């Protein structure tokens, strides 16, 4: 197995050699990430699961979550894709500052985001006060507030993903479109957007997942009213104090949705974005 001169003993390739000192924390880390989820599955009351799932409260919360997360994602697409385009393609002074500002909600504690939203869109906030006085519209503690809270924390994920895709796209195709008579809007709609579609889809899925799991900003800005603003994460939290089994069932549903998202995202990434 070793060289005749003995200078280079046979050994596995360097990549497969991991020092024990690193292997132990690696396995501990893996266990730390996986065990709680396994625990959740293990504690699931499978016999009463169908009944639990069809309880009106569960379905209401799930329905509200899916609806608000979807609306929030659409809102993020409408606002976020142009914003990403601006950041990726238009050189302007202070672009780096703008990019940093866009990413702030990613690192900001969501509760702080909720407080900030309340201060601006609340009944006595700058914009909220005006909306109330002019149109008699109040946002806080409504489903609209849920959507806004979710959009606030989730949009950066979409913007970052789409901006990355736009930066990676070959702008010569846009020039080719221009020589064929396409104006900027047509070029964007028929050439740029389809070519960065994998990035947009990945960004939208991440955005949707983040919106679905939103808790802190939602409970601060939208409150916790069953049927109106009580989304799945809020319902889980509430159930935890009264009915542990219900909390487990609700958590399991969210876990399954998340795994499904991850699976779809993996396919997107492997099938689309890597080839562009």
């Amino acid at each position: 197995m070793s060289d005749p001169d003995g200078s280079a003993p046979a050994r596995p390739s360097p990549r497969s050699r991991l020092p024990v000192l690193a292997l132990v924390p690696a396995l501990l880390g893996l266990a730390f990430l996986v065990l709680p989820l396994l625990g959740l599955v293990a504690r699931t009351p499978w016999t009463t699961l169908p009944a639990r799932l069809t309880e009106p409260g569960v379905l209401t919360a799930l329905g509200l979550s899916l609806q608000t997360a979807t609306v929030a994602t659409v809102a993020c697409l409408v606002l976020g894709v142009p914003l990403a385009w601006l950041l990726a393609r238009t050189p302007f002074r202070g672009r780096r500052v703008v990019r940093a500002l866009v990413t702030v909600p990613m690192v900001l504690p969501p509760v702080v985001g909720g407080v900030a939203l309340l201060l601006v869109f609340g009944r006595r906030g700058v914009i909220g006060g005006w909306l109330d006085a002019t149109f008699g519209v109040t946002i806080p503690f409504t489903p609209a507030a849920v959507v806004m809270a979710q959009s606030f924390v989730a949009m950066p994920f979409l913007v970052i993903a789409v901006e990355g895709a736009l930066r990676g796209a070959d702008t010569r195709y846009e020039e080719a479109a221009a020589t064929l008579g396409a104006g900027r809007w047509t070029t964007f709609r028929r050439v740029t957007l389809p070519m960065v579609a994998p990035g947009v889809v990945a960004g939208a899925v991440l955005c949707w997942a983040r919106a679905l799991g939103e808790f802190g900003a939602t409970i601060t800005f939208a409150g916790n009213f069953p049927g109106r603003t009580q989304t799945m994460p809020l319902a889980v939290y509430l159930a935890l104090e009264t009915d542990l089994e219900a909390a487990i069932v609700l958590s399991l549903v969210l876990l399954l949705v998340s795994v499904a998202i991850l699976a779809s995202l993996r396919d997107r990434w492997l099938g689309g974005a890597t080839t562009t």
Partner: protein
Amino acid sequence: MSGHPPVPGQPALDAHLVVDRGGFRLDVRLAVAPGEVVAVVGPNGAGKTTALRALAGLLRLSAGHVWLAGRPLDEPATGVWVPPERRRVGVVFQDHLLFPHLSAVENVAFGPRCRGAGRREARRQAGEWLRRVGVAHLARYRPGQLSGGQAQRVALARALVGRPPLLLLDEPLAALDAGTRADTRAELNRHLSTHDGGTLLVTHDPLDALILADRLVVIEDGRVVQEGDAATITARPQADYVARLVGLNLYRGDADGRTVVLDNGFKLTVGDANHGRVFVAFRPSAVALHRYPPEGSPRNVWPTRIDGLHHHGDTLRVELGPPLPLSADVTPQAASQLRLAPGSQVWASVKAVEISAYPAGGD
């Protein structure tokens, strides 16, 4: 859509392109008549692509003008600027740049759709052009499924579908492998000859230019060094670049009658009498090689060294070293008799009548 059909006698394109880009200055005049094919030839970095981009409207002129079919498109002096999408200039890009998410027919229909045609009408036009360039059967294929030659035809159809008064081709054959290249060149030649608008192609390959174009414009370092038809350019090249590619040995020097002192100090006796700056050119086949000093009295005889040997068609091309680096063509029989090999010493001779000298333009 229309309004500016090519008028006979009026140039399709009349341009004076001046572009300043960080230390590089392009300054060339180009004119293309309707139905004419003009090739802009030059080495990499000469400014060919910059010129093409300025004509397409992908780059603004610093000065000068672009007039197409009697209409100004870019004229910094008067502030006229027409963006690319309103120029009606068809472009075949070097890598074709077919939209990867659209099928061949959708790629070709893209232009008509942008210019206001309905979906059905655009597809009908696209289908007709695909048929014209001989790839109708590939209409539903995505660009990723096409070969280089097929993609090139689709790109040509896409550029021609609106019958633009000016067609631009950027290195139309560079992306193809040698096998498809010759076929595609012949094919392209056929399509260009039926295009009634002007055609301007840029290429670094003089062979493509000589075959495809009615007229050549040779540019180097952003300036036109020579302009004319194939016969003129090949007979009296004014650029090392062209000379090398048409297979001539070309030097600059100072003439005093039939004696020319080349810029490297070497003296040649030539066939034409001149005074002042000249180009000196002779064919590789005009060079004779000898093992020993030749008898008789050719005027130009000197000892030299063989730097390299390679096959060039039926002949053997011999690269000679100092004092006068040049290419010589000999038959394989002669080569074996002379026992030519890299590094061996030989005598070279060139008859004076075989060497042409002509005034260097703009030197």
